[in-house]
């Protein structure tokens, strides 16, 4: 065929026009992109439990307040902390500090919140207890209960709750969270002296608080060791880790994919051009993140490594094309370019399926990876191609012979590989019972939290010290119905009843506060989102997220299966080949399940949606392999020359790309990467090794 250099068309203009624009806009996007450090925004915002949790979390502290929680055994107690709070006032960065229980609102509002959430019968009992006759009777009971054996703890509880409303909320011998709250270790709530606008502000405030606490607590005994919680601490810690994670994952992926490329092709300059093309594609995705989302969440920080791993495919295909011996054919180049674009659109669509999930965290990841893949295909077929045309690389001499040898080996031993495929199916059937009983899916939300970080440890410590409120005590309670049913109580008359029964204002004060809070709640001027809502919402969140994740999984898997089935029919137009694709998919899924079982890995709410992704990736490999085999008329050696190395290297690059998130500090991302890695290994084994063996018309070598 006459030498016809591939016509790169507009690709000649890419370095002059597109690259500078991408670099400039990409740099601006990197500088102005914000980090979304919280967990809740990853979940569907329309869920009532998510909305309640957001409100309830706001009740713990304001967005700029820090909470210092002393580690067990080092809390110096109320008087010492009050003195410490006084010393913190005016320290650099600190406006003031208070000692409290780490919650907004008083214990009275907290008790009122529990009343508001009660089921109707007990809510009515509370109302009855607050009538004049009820108050009189209950105070008489309280007086008589004080006689006899003296229980100092009970005295303290009765002093706060002389009408024993807690006994109506949690009938004895139930828990007494109110009593527990009275003995909770105190914490420090610290306010900044200026508005915290940026992550740098949060980090500076955290450093200032740490320094001040260290310096001012020197004389205390025991010397408190504080863990810092609150929004500034969370934001500062997570944003710092996110920046570190992005850097580590990016360097890891670029280094290892480059190493893999170098190991096979031993070509340095083209490798550098490939890295540049990848960087440009990543910058394009960053621009999309900045323009469309303005911020990037903890799941999406893994997009760059995933993009580099998966998108390496196109660069390798382009390189491999120009590295072949002999003249390049313009027609073949156009076909390859078309195939690369088709593949990028297919893979982008595969990731794009996540855009239809209910989880905003995954939707953002889907958009970034899809945008990046399309950009990668563009730069591979323009920028990279132009450079490789000018300086043709050459593949290592050992590559083709090695590829041929492997293909011949596979061809000669295809019976063994068929038996291997059958064995996998047999193992799955024989061990179906233990395999089906394994927990492939763990819907718990807590495992998604970066619990190793200090702010989360502080929050857990605070929660463990807080009174445990059994959520089932409030089953059936309707806050709105209760609010309408509440009969406002005259606080002055209530206090007068106390005096008549022999209790002065020190005894009626707390009950008056509770009643006042309930009156304001009834009037609509107070929102009682207390610990009951928090506990209830967390329980409900697990149920809601599990329901949504499973529904998404079924819906998206079905859609993806339908799409790939249709794609296979369009591509092959023959039932036998479509069936082979399905067999490859089944084998990949069985291998995936076995690997999850062997590695004791469970999928989370987020990584469950890797399954639809895997369906697309497996079929992507199997489609290419079968099309190549058909084109080569069953000659595996011939097909392998064009595809084996690129597909294998692509698989390796994808595995590296998905492995990088396992080094992040985010458990959600670690699990996502782990699961996708296992899935990619299963896809490569199934598509590259087992599928050719199942192809019935292999040419004998």
């Amino acid at each position, binding site marked *: 065929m006459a030498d016809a250099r591939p016509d790169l068309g507009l690709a000649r203009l890419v370095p002059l026009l597109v690259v500078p624009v991408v670099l400039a806009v990409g740099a601006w996007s990197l500088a102005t992109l914000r980090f979304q450090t919280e967990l809740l925004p990853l979940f569907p915002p329309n869920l009532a439990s998510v909305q309640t949790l957001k409100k309830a979390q706001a009740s713990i502290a304001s967005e700029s307040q820090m909470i210092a929680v002393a580690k067990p055994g080092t809390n110096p107690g109320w008087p010492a902390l009050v003195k410490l709070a006084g010393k913190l006032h005016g320290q650099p960065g600190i406006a003031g500090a208070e000692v409290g229980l780490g919650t907004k609102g008083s214990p009275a509002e907290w008790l009122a919140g529990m009343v508001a959430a009660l089921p109707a019968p007990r809510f009515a009992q509370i109302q009855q207890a607050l009538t004049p006759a009820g108050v009189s009777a209950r105070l008489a009971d309280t*007086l*008589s*209960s*004080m*006689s*006899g*054996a*003296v*229980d*100092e*703890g*009970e*005295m303290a509880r009765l*002093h706060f709750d002389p009408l024993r409303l807690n006994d109506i909320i949690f009938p*004895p*011998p139930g828990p007494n969270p109110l009593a527990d709250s009275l003995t909770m270790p105190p914490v420090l709530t610290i306010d900044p002296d200026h508005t915290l606008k940026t992550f740098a502000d949060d980090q500076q405030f955290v450093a200032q608080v740490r320094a001040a606490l260290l310096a001012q607590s020197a004389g205390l005994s025991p010397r408190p060791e504080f863990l810092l919680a609150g929004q500034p601490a969370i934001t500062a810690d997570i944003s710092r880790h996110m920046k570190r994670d992005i850097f580590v994952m990016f360097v890891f992926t670029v280094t290892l994919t480059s190493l893999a490329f170098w190991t096979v092709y031993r070509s340095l300059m083209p490798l550098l051009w490939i890295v540049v093309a990848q960087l440009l594609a990543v910058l394009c995705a960053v621009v999309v993140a900045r323009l469309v989302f303005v911020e990037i969440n903890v799941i999406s920080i893994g997009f760059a490594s995933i993009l580099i791993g998966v998108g390496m495919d196109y660069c390798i295909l382009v390189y491999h094309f120009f590295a072949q011996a002999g003249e390049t054919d313009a027609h073949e180049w156009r076909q390859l370019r078309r195939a690369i674009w088709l593949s990028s659109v297919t893979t982008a669509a595969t990731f794009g399926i996540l855009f239809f999930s209910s989880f905003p965290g995954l939707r953002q990841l889907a958009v970034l990876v899809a945008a990046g893949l399309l950009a990668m295909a563009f730069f591979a077929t323009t920028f990279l191609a132009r450079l490789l045309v000018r300086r043709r690389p050459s593949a290592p001499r050992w590559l083709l012979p090695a590829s041929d040898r492997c293909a011949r080996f596979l061809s000669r031993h295809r019976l063994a590989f068929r038996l291997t495929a059958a064995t996998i199916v047999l193992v799955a059937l024989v061990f179906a019972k233990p395999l089906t009983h394994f927990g492939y899916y763990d819907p718990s939300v807590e495992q998604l939290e970066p619990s190793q970080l200090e702010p989360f440890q502080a929050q857990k410590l605070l929660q463990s010290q807080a009174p445990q409120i059994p959520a089932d005590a409030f089953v059936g309670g309707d806050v709105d119905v209760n609010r309408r049913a509440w009969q406002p109580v005259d606080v002055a008359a209530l206090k007068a009843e106390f005096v008549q029964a*022999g*209790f*002065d*204002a*020190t*005894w009626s004060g707390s009950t008056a506060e509770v009643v006042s809070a309930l009156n304001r709640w009834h009037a609509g001027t107070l929102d009682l989102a207390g610990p009951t809502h928090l506990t209830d919402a967390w329980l409900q969140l697990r149920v809601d997220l599990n329901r949504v994740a499973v529904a998404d999984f079924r819906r998206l898997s079905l859609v993806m299966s339908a799409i790939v089935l249709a794609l296979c029919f369009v591509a092959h137009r023959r039932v036998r080949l479509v069936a082979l694709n399905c067999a490859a998919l089944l084998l990949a899924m069985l291998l995936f399940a076995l690997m999850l079982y062997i590695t004791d890995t469970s999928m989370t709410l987020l990584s469950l949606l890797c399954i639809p992704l895997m369906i697309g990736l497996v079929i992507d490999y199997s489609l290419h392999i079968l099309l190549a085999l058909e084109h080569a008329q069953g000659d595996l050696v011939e097909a392998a020359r064009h595809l084996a190395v690129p597909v294998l290297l692509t698989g390796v690059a994808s595995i590296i790309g998905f492995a990088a998130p396992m080094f992040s500090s985010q458990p959600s991302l670690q699990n996502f990467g782990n699961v996708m890695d296992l899935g990619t290994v299963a896809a490569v084994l199934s598509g590259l090794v087992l599928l050719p063996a199942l192809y019935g018309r292999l040419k004998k070598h």
Partner: protein
Amino acid sequence: MLRRALFCVALALVPAALRAEPAPVLAAEMARDDAGFAQVQQQTRTFRAEVMQTLHLQGLVKPVTSAGTLYYASPDKLLIRFTQPAGEWMLVNGAQALVQKAGRPLERHDLNAQGRAASHAASLLDFFHADPARWHHDFDVTMTRDGDRLFVHLKPWMTPTASAQGVQEIVTTLQLPAYAIVEMAITINAGNSIDYQFAHGERNVSLDPKLFEVPAP
């Protein structure tokens, strides 16, 4: 008229003038009384008395009174079983302190882990056990005397090793010369105190050991 009024006022003031404050006990006498009381208590293997408990709580117009019987068995057992209200009791047995209120689960306190301040009944027991060396270690001890009544004032030292933190003061009234315990007033804090008045006390009576048995959890 004016002279008669003044005479009446003077008459009213005389008893007050004649009524003297209890006189402080000097150090030498204190040591003698320490030893005397300790000897009496250490010779007491068991003790039983009727007890009237009066609870003064800040903010309550009327104090809360209860009646019962106190049982003591040397060296570390004390039980107060109430008859008014019936069914309630407080027990100290070794390092365990238990409180049974009517209609409530039994409250248990580990005095080794929580300290003796976890139960004021433990303070009662400490006094019955009469270890003057320990008193002076844990408390600032002063004594006053009024006729045949000896008043022992115990104020806890505020140190980390003091075991009596949780009470502000304990004032015990002893009837001389037998050093019989007549009354014990425990002040927890300003406005809150518990008084125990003892009557018909009997030493070294036979007591059923099952009285002091700790119920299984």
